[in-house]
């Protein structure tokens, strides 16, 4: 009896050591730490989500469909393009291939976070599922303050961003085309978010070559291939240049 009871005895330290069973306190702390980082996304996703819901509604797809799409696909640009799949001849294979093309940039997010997400335990599948552009960029740059559980911090950034998108698009679907104020240009908030994260990374690093390579390769590919087709060539160019400069960059990094 005594032996059996022992593992059930809990003390506060247990929660810190087994991060998958977090106490309310740990969760609350992580949520409070994560929320401020997601405020720009809250703004951007509410607006873009509403616009998406309105667009879906205008094509005859009610709020239920918008909800399902935003909840499961959770990929802004792919969802916008998917409206064209929903309004033309039924072609699931084309829809799959187009989505793979549009979302190919996510492959790089995974490669960048292999290490950071290595020990995320049972939260990991959801963290990867919810790895959109915005969540990726925040996770890349934001570090939890001391005393905040890192797994739950990343989890809440992912979950909050996911919720903003789903709620925003559902709101759009419900509102139809009622508009409260002139929102033209509000979508720039996400561009601003990426610019600021770029600056944060710039300030934190001595070696700016990877950042410059990313901007230059993409800008050149944008000029050469045009706005519709430049992401995959950009990814190839970035990989090529980083691979060619590996020895140099690895040395400068001190490794």
């Amino acid at each position: 009896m005594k032996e059996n009871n022992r593992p059930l005895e809990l003390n506060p330290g247990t929660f810190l050591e087994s991060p998958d069973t977090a106490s309310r306190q740990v969760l609350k702390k992580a949520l409070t730490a994560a929320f401020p980082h997601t405020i720009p996304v809250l703004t951007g996703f509410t607006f873009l989500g509403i616009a998406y819901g309105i667009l879906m509604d205008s094509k005859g797809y009610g709020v239920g469909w918008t909800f399902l799409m935003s909840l499961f696909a959770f990929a802004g640009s792919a969802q916008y393009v998917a409206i064209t799949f929903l309004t033309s001849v039924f072609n699931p294979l084309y829809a799959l291939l187009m989505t793979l093309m549009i979302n190919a940039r996510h492959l790089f997010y995974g490669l960048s976070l292999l290490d950071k997400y290595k020990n995320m335990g049972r939260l990991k599948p959801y963290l990867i599922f919810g790895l959109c552009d915005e969540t990726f960029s925040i996770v890349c740059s934001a570090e939890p303050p001391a005393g905040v559980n890192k797994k739950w911090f990343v989890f809440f950034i992912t979950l909050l961003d996911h919720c903003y998108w789903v709620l925003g698009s559902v709101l759009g679907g419900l509102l139809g085309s009622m508009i409260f104020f002139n929102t033209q240009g509000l979508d720039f908030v996400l561009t601003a978010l990426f610019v600021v994260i770029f600056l944060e990374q710039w300030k934190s690093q001595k070696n700016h070559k990877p950042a410059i390579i990313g901007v230059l390769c993409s800008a050149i590919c944008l000029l050469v291939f045009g706005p519709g087709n430049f992401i995959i060539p950009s990814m190839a160019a970035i990989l090529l240049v980083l691979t060619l400069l590996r020895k140099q960059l690895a040395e400068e990094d001190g490794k």
Partner: protein
Amino acid sequence: MTLTPGQTLIIICMVTLGTVITRFLPFILFQNNKNQNAYITYLGKVLPYAVIGMLVVYCLKGVNFQSPANWLPAAIAIVCIVMLHYWKSNTLLSIGGGTVIYMFLVQAVF
């Protein structure tokens, strides 16, 4: 609705599947090697910086130089973000300030 509910559901599944594949593939391919390949480790170190650069360009893909209205608002807003950020180092201030300036420019000036 152009498609039937069944067809719509299949399209939603396809878009979900496409997204899930691109998000999970790197983890499935590279996570299980205990002794991670040095090249992949190197990429994991340098890629985040290059990818954020790519994302900035991706957001600006609609910009073109046919008329000042097509690029000047974004250019001014980004310069303001850079200045604000080096001045105050406050993420929300930089993002909010840049967005407000951009909205003002596209709505009232250009």
